[in-house]
């Protein structure tokens, strides 16, 4: 064990730091440009330096850098610290682009990867349906071939960002006679067409970042089938691996913890700071220890992957989602307890949207508490995680298939 960074890595960090200091925010005339244009300019420069889209070949608009998880983690830390909006991972760049590179054909890579990276095409993910949640393979939205086009009928739900998206990637039942998993295909389809209706799904915290998408005769070319017909399940597993990159950012939990400590410090209980209350201190200290455990465990995973030894960290990899979810919920519940009666007031729409940045308003914390409850479901329900941990890590018998 040696937790010092090598001189080479320290040098890399200094270079990235200097680049970011210079490149963001934009200055002079460039600072007057529309936000999307500023983001695009920054991305262009970051790609040129090899700091973004490192796993994507140059011919598709990436920077094609050698695989190095340590450098990736340095970049993530430095980019997060500098608050660059242009580097926020998008569904398209983080999930679809790598899926196309692995499972798509040359034509699909040519048409979609570049425009996805520079955000000319914004994507949403079409997996869940009213009847297909944890049992994802029960998808019933169907696509029927009509000449060289798929004609789609059905209903997707929990679709993040659907109203802003230009295209959807998702699973559709194309082989009604095949078995459950073998009847699905992975299709790309444009949303701006008749036969697509997008409606917001209002959440319990008042915000609406998810949508329902209804299809009634929507069409997409057969050339937009990723992988073979009937092999959509396999393709979707590849996407799921990349989804991990979007979930469970420990820096987020650390920022949240720091915010809650400040909230406790400011909160007055019977003439003294709530941070002086032994019960609050112990709850905070316990959550702090659990977060520290998660952070060091992430470091252990990173380190094992860097030395090509990912198999040795299967256990931490598979428990991280469940552990982080429980931890974050306990933390936001503590904030919820600190705000007291204000927890009885509905968050404003602004507070409901501000869950990613801890701001010291009661409504933000309340909204965060509600939002973190949703992480028990999003990206793989906690009880499904427990099944996976029990079956694959502990070797217990699989659940009977009904």
């Amino acid at each position, binding site marked *: *064990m*040696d*937790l*010092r*960074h*090598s001189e080479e*890595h320290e040098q890399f960090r200094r270079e990235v730091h200097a680049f970011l200091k210079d490149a963001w925010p934009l200055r002079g005339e460039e600072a007057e440009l529309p936000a999307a244009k500023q983001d695009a300019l920054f991305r262009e420069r970051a790609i040129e330096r090899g700091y973004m889209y490192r796993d994507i070949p140059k011919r598709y608009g990436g920077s094609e850098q050698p695989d190095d998880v*340590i450098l990736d983690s340095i970049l993530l830390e430095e980019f997060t610290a500098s608050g660059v909006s242009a580097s926020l991972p998008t569904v398209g760049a983080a999930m679809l682009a790598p899926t196309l590179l692995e499972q798509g054909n040359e034509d699909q890579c040519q048409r979609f990867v570049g425009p996805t990276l520079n955000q000319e095409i914004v994507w949403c993910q079409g997996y869940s349906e009213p009847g297909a949640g944890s049992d994802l393979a029960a998808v019933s939205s169907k696509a029927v071939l009509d000449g060289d086009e798929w004609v789609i009928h059905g209903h997707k739900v929990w679709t993040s960002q659907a109203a802003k998206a230009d295209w959807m990637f998702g699973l559709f039942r194309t082989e009604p006679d095949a078995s459950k998993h073998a009847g699905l295909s992975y299709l790309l389809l444009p949303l701006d067409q008749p036969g697509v209706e997008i409606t917001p799904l209002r959440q319990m915290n008042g915000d609406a970042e998810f949508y329902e998408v209804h299809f009634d005769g929507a069409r997409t070319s057969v050339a937009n089938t990723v992988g073979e017909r009937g092999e959509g399940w396999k393709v979707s597993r590849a996407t799921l691996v990349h989804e991990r990159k979007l979930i469970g950012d420990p820096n987020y939990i650390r920022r949240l913890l720091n915010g809650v*400590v400040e909230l*406790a*410090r400011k909160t007055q209980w019977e003439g003294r700071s709530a*941070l002086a209350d*032994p019960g609050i*201190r*112990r709850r*905070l*200290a*316990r959550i*702090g*220890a*659990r977060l*520290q*455990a*998660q952070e*060091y*465990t992430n*470091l*252990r995973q*990173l*380190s*094992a992957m*860097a*030395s090509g*030894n990912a198999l*040795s960290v299967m*256990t*931490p990899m598979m*428990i991280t989602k*469940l*552990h982080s979810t*429980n931890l974050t919920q306990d933390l936001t519940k503590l904030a919820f307890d600190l705000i007291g009666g204000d927890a009885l007031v509905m968050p404003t729409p602004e507070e409901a949207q501000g869950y990613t940045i801890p701001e010291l308003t009661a409504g933000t914390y309340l909204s965060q508490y509600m939002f973190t409850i949703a992480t028990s479901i999003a990206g793989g329900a906690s*009880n499904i*995680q*427990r*099944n996976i*941990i*029990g*079956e694959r*890590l*502990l*070797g*217990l*018998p699989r*659940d*009977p298939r009904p």
Partner: protein
Amino acid sequence: MDFGLSEEQDLLQETVRTFARGECPEPRLREIYDSETGYDPALWSGLSDLGISGLIAPEAHGGAELELLDAALVAEALGGAALPAPYFGHTLACLALRLGGSAEQQERWLPRLASGDALGTVALGEGDHGWLPATWQTELTDGALTGHKDWVPFAAQADVLIVGTRGDGLALVERSATELIPVEGVDRTRPVWSARWNRAAAEPLDVAATRICEAGAILLAADAFGAASKLIEMTRDYVQTREQFGQPLARFQAVKHQLADMLTETEPTRALWWFAAYAFDHRPEDAPLAAAQAKAHGTDVAMEVARGAFELHGGIGFTWECDVQFWFKRVLFDRTFLGTPDVHLDRSAQLQGW
């Protein structure tokens, strides 16, 4: 950057595990447990032959001069075997001499301690809640030790005791100058005594007691992690053989999920004591917080795992004949000794400036 173990460290653990499997399998452990002394000198001399008694002692005095992480990895393996051996107190005594002994004191004690010819232990706690050095009343004045200590592991077998004294100090005293009072300890793999001195001849060591307590907290967290891992393994095996309602318990999702939760809480605590042990040698400024977190959270999770292991074993888990009790009590010791989780949570809050 490398947050992982070396091949030598893997080998060290495997060596201890192989020894424990061969020399102290469950039937032998039960014999020792039910014996008068709760102690088998052959086990400790076997470990000494492997170099475990001299693990932390300097090379110049016949030790291996390894780091606290290596010592913690051995503690994990011994916790996993619930091995009845005086490793914990002995290792802390050697560490105290290594960090705070004069050249003469080191020369006098370390070669014999390292070889296993002499045994060391630590006398730290006073009364039910006197684990923190700030609460100690035992006093060393002009080479004379006066006071009372409780929960001294393997005191009757030890040749030399390292005693915590008022003002965050440590004193070296021989067992022959110590009056011992037997206690029926709950963890028979690590029997304890009370100790008394009235102007006994003793010498100061030049190291803060707090630092030795930190090392102790880390070793206990590692021991508890080893015990918790063993309990999860035993329970996993048991639920696959025990049948109720016509099928193995493991077929019930409630059982599967309970075990999954036990593993999910336990696994991340490994990284806490790994880091704390690394910090002890390489980032001493980070060690106090890391040790407090590892001890508070790690041993508490292990206790909850022990409770769950008992629950999943059903009624048999509550019997003397069931092996679960060995590890349940091992964890109870690890959680209580040097202060309960609340003590270390309070300390970690303070260390973070809260």
